[in-house]
């Protein structure tokens, strides 16, 4: 449960499973080459570090209370990221896969809602802006023709 300015070591996260765990669900957020139909060159993530870490820990405790057999770990990047870099990694381990999937999905949804991290998109034309998900829908994407 931490914020890092260094690339996330995803392989290391996969050693989280306990001997009683049969299912591991991992979610990775990756920097895309476009958003809302506009090309992206890079992303700068700014975090309110201590509060972001406290909030991620609170979310993990909350998830582990809702799914007592699940353990959740999460890491979020800060700083400047190129296309294809991992911005967030979540690992949910559980005896069975249903719980692992459900907790992992809930983790990323809650991270996006309450963890104080912001992202500035830089475009190939040199322009940039802070992303406001309350004004744009990440899922209502204009399909790029060559995608």
């Amino acid at each position: 449960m931490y914020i890092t300015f260094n690339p996330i070591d995803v392989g290391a996260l996969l050693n989280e499973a306990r001997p009683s765990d049969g299912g591991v669900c991992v979610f990775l957020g990756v920097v895309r080459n476009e958003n809302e139909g506009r090309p992206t060159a890079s992303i700068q993530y700014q975090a309110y570090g201590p509060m972001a870490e406290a909030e991620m820990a609170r979310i993990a405790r909350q998830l582990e209370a809702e799914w007592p057999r699940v353990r959740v770990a999460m890491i979020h990047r800060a700083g400047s990221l190129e296309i294809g870099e991992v911005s967030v990694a979540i690992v949910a381990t559980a005896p069975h896969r249903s719980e692992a999937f459900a907790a992992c999905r809930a983790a990323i949804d809650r991270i996006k809602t309450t963890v104080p991290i912001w992202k500035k998109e830089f475009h190939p034309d040199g322009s940039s802006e802070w992303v406001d998900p309350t004004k744009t829908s990440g899922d209502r994407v204009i399909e790029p023709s060559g995608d």
Partner: protein
Amino acid sequence: MRVNLLYFASFRDIAGSAEEARDLPEGTRVGDLWRALRSEHPKFAAYPAMPPAAVNHEYVDADRILRDGDEVAYLPPVAGG
């Protein structure tokens, strides 16, 4: 009493700084400080309601009374993930 006020992302652009110390009268609430910021920075006035606020790294309501040494932040819409 004195609090430490932090700004992030677009709010940092509006305030022109990342952090400032503020002397406030005893009993000042989180909502009161937001109203003061609105009067200082016209762009904050564009926000119809007080944005989510945090004191000492926890979300708080507008009626939270501030205390000496508190770390306060009003948070623009988060976009992690």
